[in-house]
């Protein structure tokens, strides 16, 4: 069923009796050409592009809970392509272009909102770094604009511009950046993949990976053994656990990241703002809640909840940047498990096991990557080699030294 304004009108007249489930509830078949483990945004996008661009539709996405129950449904929904390093920026700009056409491609309203992403700076040195990054973005075909304090003031007048310690001296603006509705991205990819014949199998946890003679044969699951020609892992925070089933030890630590929403208020922030003097970012949802977050907690965790020092730290940054939020009540907080890679950049690659592919290391920035991640992972699985866009995102870069060290934080996941 194609969604359209005509369909809505028709269903309105028919008492909404004609809507069907957006995807089928499938029982696993004995064998698939490709099994994708993990029904987050990346796994579902991979299945969609495998079917759409590579003609491989005998695909199952296996999800241990419900689709979108992991980070895809827990993130703060910021999308942007404002990276510095060549290995990253081409990839994220490709993702931005896919976001721009996603609703037409999926026939689903993913609520992509190009409200802009504004990275504030507070010193001359930070301004220089922002200018350098902006130049790199523009050289890669993305948009970037250096704003002075007066220009920022016209956009967001309630920021604490004249803060004694961290005055706001300007910002790097990417107007094409913004937000998208995270759940809708999951549902849109699931529905589009399903319509091309992909089986989306929920409540199906992978408990083992069968490898014979160095080649993957299938997966053990809570719903029985399923054979596969190829297996792609897109398990985000649980990547190390699942990869260990095939004997792989990875350059990844799992850490918890928290996010917060306030009670709903009238429009205050009509863009996405990041604080340059601390790790803090904020936007406002369509319901009126401020949506914000900051640093990871900084220790290994699979608990999907963090501890109080980060709550305090994020709240302090919020009030430092927007003093008018001081009396606002925090409504909810939650946590998700980040697959923190050792250099802070992702991995989309083959592995030492033939037919087993890895998509991981997204840290706290993988939502914006969802379209390009699925696009590149599908290519890598279908052709058994990386596309030029993910050529730098290799698993062996930690051995060869070709790191993508975007933040210069080295091999310390808790510093990225």
């Amino acid at each position, binding site marked *: 069923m194609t969604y359209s304004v005509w369909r809505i009108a028709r269903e309105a007249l028919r008492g909404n009796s004609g809507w069907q489930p957006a995807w089928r509830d499938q029982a696993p078949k004995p064998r698939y050409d490709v099994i994708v483990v993990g029904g987050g945004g990346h796994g579902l996008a991979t299945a969609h592009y495998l079917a759409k661009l590579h003609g491989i539709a005998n695909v199952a996405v296996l999800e241990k809970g419900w689709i979108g129950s992991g980070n895809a449904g827990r993130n703060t929904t910021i999308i942007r392509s404002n990276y510095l390093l060549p290995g990253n920026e081409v990839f994220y700009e490709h993702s931005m272009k896919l976001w721009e056409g996603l609703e037409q491609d999926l026939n689903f309203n993913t609520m992509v909102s190009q409200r802009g992403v504004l990275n504030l700076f507070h010193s001359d040195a930070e301004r220089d770094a922002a200018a350098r990054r902006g130049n790199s973005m523009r050289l890669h075909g993305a948009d970037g604009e250096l704003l002075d304090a007066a220009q920022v003031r016209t956009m967001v007048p309630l920021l604490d511009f004249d803060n004694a310690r961290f005055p706001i001296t300007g910002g790097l603006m990417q107007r094409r950046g913004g937000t998208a509705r995270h759940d809708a991205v999951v549902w849109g990819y699931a529905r589009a993949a399903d319509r091309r014949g992909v089986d989306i199998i929920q409540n199906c946890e992978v408990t083992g990976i069968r490898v014979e003679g160095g080649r993957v044969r299938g997966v053990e699951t809570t719903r029985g053994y399923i054979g596969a020609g190829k297996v792609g892992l897109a398990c985000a925070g649980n990547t190390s656990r699942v990869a260990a089933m095939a004997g792989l030890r*990875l350059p990844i*630590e799992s850490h918890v990241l928290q996010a917060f929403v306030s009670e709903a208020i009238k429009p205050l922030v009509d863009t996405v703002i990041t604080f340059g003097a601390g790790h803090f970012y904020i936007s406002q949802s369509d319901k009126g809640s401020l949506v914000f977050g900051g640093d990871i907690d900084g220790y290994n965790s*699979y*608990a999907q909840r963090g*501890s*109080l020092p980060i709550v305090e730290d994020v709240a302090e940054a919020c009030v430092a940047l927007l003093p008018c939020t001081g009396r606002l009540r925090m409504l909810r907080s939650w946590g998700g498990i980040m697959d923190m890679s*050792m250099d802070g950049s992702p991995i989309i690659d083959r592995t030492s096991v033939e037919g087993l592919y890895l998509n991981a290391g997204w840290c706290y920035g993988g939502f914006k990557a969802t379209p390009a991640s699925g696009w590149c992972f599908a290519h890598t699985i279908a052709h058994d080699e990386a596309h030029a866009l993910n050529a730098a995102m290799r698993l062996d870069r*930690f051995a060869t030294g070709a790191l993508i060290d975007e933040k210069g934080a080295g*091999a*310390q996941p808790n510093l990225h």
Partner: protein
Amino acid sequence: MRIPCPHCGERGNDEFLYRGAAGLPRPPADATEAQWHDYVYLRDNPYGSHRELWQHVHGCRRWLVVTRDTRTHVIAAVTDVSMALS
């Protein structure tokens, strides 16, 4: 999360600095690049009990080996590094 420091008593985790898995065997100086790669970059990243290094930077400044469950954050044991790794 609160960590019971053997020297200072139970303190909030923001008094401590985290340094990841404890007891990774440091390769000898003449080890191969592959051994150094494994040591610097690869981690078990367990789902469950994890032995890890924390430094009590805002207290006694001692390095501690904490055994903590990564699923629940419940701490099973804390030892001064001189006792734990000797």
